């Protein structure tokens, strides 16, 4: 029965998840015609009957339902109950012991289990179709008390983002990564903010688990029109990224590699990958245990964050890289210290930030004005990601704008000769753009970016 039911649902790697606060079947109308196809429902044993009815109605529409179980007691029992109530699977959200996770797995097999755990305990590199965490920063440009944007070392506004962490997490394996952080409490979350948090994850191939703030949840339930408009904006943003599944097969295109492991900051937000990302220098994350000649193929520069942690074989790979003309920058000896995220902290502390400043100067000097895949202009309020198709004939530049205002006149200089370019945005149909030659290869001008845009060249 369960197997037959699953056949009608998308596979977990294609799930577009949202936290759902309601068990009324009429609320399923909200996701009708949207990409959302997986609902995370807080499991409450007292609502077993309603949950079963809801899960049944959802399944009829091809929508998966996952029971969210949090630490406290034996998780196997509620997990078993949830599956008996015909929910599709289970989400273990929190810091569960490996034993507890295994008990749940045994109790609900073959139903899928998705772990939303600490960043440091994500099963990176595993065969799990989906891995995830609830730990995330809320993306955006932080504003100081006087209303001014907080600036980074480059003089540009600093952007809070999960993109660097997600790049690193994805580099460990092929799992789809879910980031399931919630909106900050007691703050106004605009439609733009929701579009930004979706784009922040999607541009690096991850998915944000849609989580609405309390006020929007309440108003949406009441059918409030402005709330419905915000919801429409959210689903349109999801649609923008889900409509181009082929882009998910594109790989990172970057001549700069950062070799960084779990123990030296790869899973922290605001670290090296984010700093390089803020400079719009295309970068590929390379975990040390994936350091092989093929993972450095095409790279001309590399940053080795913690030289001491490499095995002799890994050092040999880097030696070969430098012997073949690659430039290697090694991080300071004490970088490794306390660079692992813990239960409460996923960003750098002051001491680590100071250390990052030091290494940043070296990275900045090494990169200079070089084009390591693409150079972007007038993008200080944005982050980007450069990808290429498997045949190398196309490149794709994802752009996400974190400012409250649209940005006009963005210029992109891509390495290589490209003859055609198209712009994709959530708001408008795809648009062909003019390309022109520049010293580095090909130039393209984009008139306007609201929150998200993707530029494809071939």
């Amino acid at each position, binding site marked *: 029965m369960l197997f037959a039911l699953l056949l009608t649902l998308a596979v977990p790697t294609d799930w577009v998840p949202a936290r759902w606060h309601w068990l009324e079947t009429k609320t399923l109308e909200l996701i009708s015609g949207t990409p959302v196809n997986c609902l995370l429902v807080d499991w409450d044993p007292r609502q077993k009957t309603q949950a079963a009815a809801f899960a049944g109605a959802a399944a009829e529409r091809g929508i998966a339902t996952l029971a969210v179980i949090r630490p406290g007691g034996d998780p196997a029992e509620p997990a078993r109950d949830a599956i008996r109530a015909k929910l599709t699977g289970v989400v273990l959200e929190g810091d569960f012991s490996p034993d507890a996770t295994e008990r749940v797995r045994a109790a609900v097999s073959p139903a899928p289990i998705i772990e939303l755990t600490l960043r440091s305990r994500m099963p990176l590199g595993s065969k799990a179709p989906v891995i995830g965490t609830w730990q995330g920063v809320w993306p955006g*440009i932080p504003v100081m008390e*006087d*209303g*001014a*944007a907080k*600036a980074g070392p*480059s*003089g*540009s*506004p600093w952007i809070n983002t999960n993109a660097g962490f997600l790049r690193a997490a994805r580099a460990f394996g092929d799992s789809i990564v879910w980031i399931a952080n919630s909106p900050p409490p007691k703050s106004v979350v605009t439609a733009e903010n929701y579009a930004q948090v979706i784009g922040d994850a999607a541009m690096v191939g991850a998915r944000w688990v849609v989580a609405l703030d309390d006020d929007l949840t309440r108003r949406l339930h009441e059918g409030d029109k402005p709330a419905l408009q915000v919801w429409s904006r959210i689903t349109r943003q999801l649609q923008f990224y889900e409509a181009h599944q082929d882009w998910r097969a594109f790989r990172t295109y970057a001549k700069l590699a950062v070799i960084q492991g779990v123990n030296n900051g790869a899973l922290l937000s605001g670290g090296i990958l984010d700093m390089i990302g803020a400079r719009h220098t295309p970068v590929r994350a390379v975990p040390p245990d994936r350091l092989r000649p093929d993972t450095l193929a095409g790279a001309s520069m590399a940053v080795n964050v913690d030289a001491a942690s490499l095995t002799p074989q890994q050092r040999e790979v880097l030696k070969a890289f430098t012997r073949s003309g690659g430039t290697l920058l090694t991080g300071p000896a004490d970088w490794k210290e306390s660079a692992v995220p813990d239960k409460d902290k996923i960003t750098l502390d002051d001491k680590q930030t100071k250390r990052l400043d030091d290494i940043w100067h070296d990275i900045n000097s090494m990169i200079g*004005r070089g084009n390591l895949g693409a150079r972007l*202009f*007038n993008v*200080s*309020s944005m982050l980007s990601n450069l990808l290429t198709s498997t045949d190398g004939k196309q490149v794709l530049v994802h752009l996400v704008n974190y*400012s*409250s*205002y649209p*940005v*006009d*006149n*963005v*210029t992109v200089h891509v390495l290589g000769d490209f003859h055609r370019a198209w712009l994709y945005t959530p708001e408008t149909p795809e648009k062909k753009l003019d390309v*022109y030659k520049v010293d580095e290869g090909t130039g393209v*001008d984009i008139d306007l970016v609201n929150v998200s845009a993707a530029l494809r060249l071939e």
Partner: protein
Amino acid sequence: MTRRELLALLSAAPVALKAAPDAPTAPVSIAKCAAYNDDVTATLGTMFDQIGGLERIVKGKTVTIKLNLTGSPGLRLQGRPLGVTHYTHPKLVGATAYLMGRAGAKRIRFVESGWALSGPLEEYMLDSGWNVRSLASAAPGVEFENTNNLGKGKRYARLKVPGTPYMYPAFDLNHAFEDTDVFVSMAKLKNHETCGVTLSLKNCFGNTPASIYGDNSGVDEPNEKPTSGRGAVCHAGERQPSRSAPQEIHFGANHDAGYRVPHIVADIVAARPVDLAIIDGIESMAGGEGPWIRSKPLRLVQPGVLIAGTNPVTSDAVATAVMGYNPRADRGTSPFQTCDNTLLLAERHGIGTTDLKRIEVVGVPIAQALYKYEA
């Protein structure tokens, strides 16, 4: 403020400095222009005609236009485009290039010492959201030069301060300031934290290359990859510029930025005279010169005016009055509460008069263009 109050304010003379009776004067044009989408080119063309015509100034000449692109392009006021807050707007720049090309300019070279810029100015402009390709095609012979270092030049030009300099006997500048027939200062109508106002005179503070006058300039020789502002050398007088350049005359005598910067600006403009001043007051900001200012509240303003003249002191005097200030106000009086008045210092150098009674205003009268910058 009524017109009568304005006129009373404008005729008030400061106690310390009397108007220089023989300082030259020149007409200043004021025009209303509500938005950058209005016909800026036509408005500016009329203004140039009102001050004697552009052709007589630029025909067959190399023209160097100093823009105001202060601060990193990444720093924006409330996320707004730079041109509507603290940079000269690209539409005004494009209109100027077009008109100069039409008037027969042989070469139009846009220059600026961009913040921490050692690469091409074009990339700084791209980062500012400018369409450089459009600007380059606005007229024949358009060029760009980063004057924060040697730029495309092979040596620095030494420009001497005539008469009795206040701070420096001469300045070592990018070649563009010497290799030109006409020098234009294109400024923004703004307050300035250190100098009270920043107009066509103060804009020239940016003529100085950070490679020599910057905080991380070389002790002996210029640092061609400057990454900082001019705080230590110019604002605070904590160190001298690179020894390869003329040194500060009374080094160590004064560390007050409110004294130093206005005096340095007056010296710079004496050394590199301004032939045409254009001040962008269509949209701007009040309270300071950029979004990094913390000492006063900043706000977006829309004065809706353009100001142009062939004398930077007369132009700035009129612009200061349009902002609701007395251009002859002494230190201690708004907007010069904590600084010396750059306009008066330039007047004492004999560059131009600040006396509004001696300045012919053409186009829109000051009283009609008045836009109070003090809230």
